[in-house]
């Protein structure tokens, strides 16, 4: 599903955010990515859905060399991936319903299908009654849950979540993690970046620790958990 080979990412001004990272994540895995702030976690996942390209090395996702996908084809590639962005990235002029529906509309889902699935997904994340609100009318945690709903609504092969519980209280966090696990059980590969120690500890899963741009440990390759 995901394969990184000697990947480095240097931003301009010479900031090295990732250093020579190699790893493989198989289809159906559930992986946590943890690390201190500024260690390169977001950089790592931005490489996966091609928000950025690696400076050196190869990134392969769903069988494609990500850097080689032509610009025009990038959206098609991204339909395989659901992403929960750290900064949400909701469309400000669309309502909650429309934001979530958008991910289905672009793949030509029939309208009644859209309505059904969006409602279901919003209920799942506990936002059933905010369906017609605009993003700026939501609390931080509610926006985060809209972002989650949008990422999972089209049943992607790969689900990437950057701090999906950063703005949520502990109880809601647990619910969301349970939801991600359920999605994982239905066959989706799930990659979760998190700071939430409780979450990582209560669900013993493969955990990749990034530190200062290097992979510090990876439980699947005999590293250590926290």
């Amino acid at each position, binding site marked *: 599903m995901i394969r990184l080979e000697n990947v480095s990412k240097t931003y301009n001004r010479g900031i090295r955010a990732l250093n020579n990272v190699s790893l493989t994540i198989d289809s159906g895995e559930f992986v946590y990515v943890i690390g201190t702030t500024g260690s390169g976690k977001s950089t790592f996942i931005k490489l996966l*859905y091609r*928000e950025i390209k690696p400076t050196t090395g190869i990134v392969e996702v769903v069988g494609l060399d990500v850097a080689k996908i032509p*610009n*025009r084809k*990038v*959206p*098609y590639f*991204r*339909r395989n991936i659901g*992403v929960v*962005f750290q900064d949400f*990235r*909701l*469309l*400000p*002029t669309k309502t909650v319903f429309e934001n979530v529906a*958008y*991910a289905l*509309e*672009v*793949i*030509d889902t029939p309208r009644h299908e859209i309505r059904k699935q969006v409602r279901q997904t919003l209920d799942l994340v506990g936002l059933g009654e905010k369906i017609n609100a605009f993003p700026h009318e939501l609390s931080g945690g509610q926006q985060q849950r809209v972002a989650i709903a*949008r990422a999972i609504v*089209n049943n992607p092969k790969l689900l990437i979540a950057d701090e999906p519980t950063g703005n949520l209280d502990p109880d809601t966090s647990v619910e969301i993690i349970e939801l991600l696990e359920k999605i994982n059980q239905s066959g989706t590969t799930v990659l979760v970046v998190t700071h939430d120690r409780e979450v990582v500890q209560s669900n013993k899963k493969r955990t990749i620790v990034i530190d200062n741009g290097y992979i510090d440990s990876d439980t699947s390759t005999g590293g250590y958990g926290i």
Partner: protein
Amino acid sequence: MRELISTFKNLPRHFKTALQNLIRNNVMSFSSIFAVTITLAMIGIVGLVAFNVQDISSSIEDEISIYVKLDRTIDDAQAEAVGTQILALDNIANVEYSSKSAELDRLIESQGEAGAALFESYREDNPLGAAYTVTVTNPDLIGQTAQKITAIEDVNTVDYGGDSTTDLIKTLNTVRNGGTIFVVALGVIALFMIANTVKITIDTRKTEISIMRMVGASNWYIRIPFMLEGMLIGLVGAILPCVMLFYGYDYIYKITNGMVVTQMLSLVEPGAVIVQLVQALVGLGAGVGIIGSFISIRRYLKF
């Protein structure tokens, strides 16, 4: 291909999106529409003025004629023969005959009060020849035509105002060409203006565009609503200028009876001209809106 089919299938939805964006970004939309409105109003006004200048300059040209004096010794039949020969030339629009005595009348009249006393005595043995007043189809060639007429037998003198008339014609041509260049230049500037406004409108939404791509929207899926929105901005922006031109010009035409002060500056009749202008404005507004969006959005479909 698949993308194209999907695009057409989704047109109603895209249209709804475009309309929604227009309404939800109300401040921005208002500014853009306002920009289009005043730009088109400007094009409309300039266009109308240009139409009228063209019209006036042609009607001045229509008045230009060649005054052909015949020998005073020839008889009516010979005079008629000259008329036929003139008519046979190229570039002749109309030929009007003026008999010997009509010419004398003219001379007397031109001398004012003293005229009759001075020249009435000539009535018996008229020293003047008959004359033709010739109008041409293409004033630019008036000099050549006059020369050809001079060559005809029995023609005494030919007068078309000489240099001063050629100058007038050149001047009118310059005014017309200058006017056209001016209108086209202003038009181009105005279109840049609209395109630029659309560009700014889109620039402010680059994050939105990148999010759409993040979520898997194909380039055309993103582009179409923006283009439709550009079209709507152009169309809505065209309403006011069109209404203004339509009723405003009609009103001006009515209160002036179709002339500005004098017959010399007569206005073009409203009807067809206005319809053409309105069509042009609507077309420009919508067209530039669509094309401007298409071009502006390009650079944001890369990440």
